């Protein structure tokens, strides 16, 4: 899922300064899974905002709403009444959700409550970790299904570097060395000869580095 984290309250308050009617809108997909922007986080954020506004002596109304997804127009349409009521909308969606809302309701002010970070997985309850960078040319088959671009701090394709220590990355003992993981997996799968092969430089043109990307499927257009 897309993993995000709520911004510090002070930063959110600064970005909604001057608002009179704030709609706090969440998303029930990725950001609900990572406890950043689901219904409960909407309620939490709304409570904090109400208290902060009252402390500041500001007369601001706060409403709450949540959408199944903020990245699909059919769901965005459901927020129409609440959006019309508000003068400022604080979205607890990911960066895509905030932008989708703004495109759908182009005359309204949308402000992000989250810092969207990565594509990742729930490792265990309360722990989310990054797995995929969306490079557009997946080569996981050759690396024991451990992505060297995403999980290696230096994006090495012919790793490891000389800083791998005890299975951890030189950057931090909290970060696993991806190449130790790749080595262990390939060893277990009896595919260690893959590590001897030279991997050529990545073609980054399929990644974000090439350009902002769009996929079109004519068979799915109406």
């Amino acid at each position, binding site marked *: 899922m897309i993993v995000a984290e709520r911004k510090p309250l002070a930063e959110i308050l600064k970005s909604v300064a001057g608002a009179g009617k704030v709609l706090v809108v969440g998303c029930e997909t990725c950001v609900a899974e990572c406890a950043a922007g689901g219904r409960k986080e909407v309620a*939490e954020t*709304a*409570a*904090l905002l109400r*208290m902060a506004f009252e*402390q500041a002596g500001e*007369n*601001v109304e706060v409403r709450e709403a949540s959408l199944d997804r903020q990245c699909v127009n059919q769901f965005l349409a459901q927020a129409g009444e609440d959006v019309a009521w508000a003068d400022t909308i604080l979205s607890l969606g990911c960066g895509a959700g905030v932008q989708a809302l703004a495109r759908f309701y182009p005359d309204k002010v949308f402000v992000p409550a989250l810092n969207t970070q990565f594509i990742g997985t729930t490792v265990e309850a309360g722990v989310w970790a990054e797995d995929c960078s969306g490079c557009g040319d997946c080569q996981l088959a050759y690396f024991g299904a451990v992505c060297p671009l995403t999980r290696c701090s230096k994006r090495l394709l012919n790793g490891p570097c000389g800083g791998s220590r005890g299975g951890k990355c030189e950057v931090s003992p909290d970060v696993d060395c991806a190449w130790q993981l790749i080595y262990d997996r390939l060893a277990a799968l009896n595919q260690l000869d893959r590590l001897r092969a030279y991997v050529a430089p990545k073609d980054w043109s399929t990644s974000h580095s090439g350009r902002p990307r769009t996929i079109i499927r004519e068979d799915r257009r109406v």
Partner: protein
Amino acid sequence: MSRLGEQIVVRFCHNQTEFMNLLKAGPAALPSGVDLAPLPCSGKVEPHQILSFFAAGADGALIQACPPGACRFVEGNLRAAKRASYAAERLSELGLSPARVRFRFAEAGSTLDPMEIINDFKENVRALGPTGLTGGRGGGGNER
């Protein structure tokens, strides 16, 4: 609601017999400004609920859980402890004392005196003073 700076919300696991008895004794048995209600498990408490209490005007929130190892839902009480702590941290982002959220595990094998526990907490909250928040306009949430 009186505004003496000691509006406290008390939530307890309904397994706590002494607290249930206090509840059954009716509102007259409680000191003023105490909102007492049971939960099927302390683990039912979530941070957004705790924060909503404060947004609506509470000056303190007390959560009374069963002793560690005695939760009928295995770990509900342990999770509640973490959530209470999280909610308290959020209060400090507003400049409010995290001590306004008190989480208690009941002591195993001893009889509780709920009035003593509640009054003790009320005293602490009174010393902290009112939060200055009354709930304002649009309080309470109208989630769809």
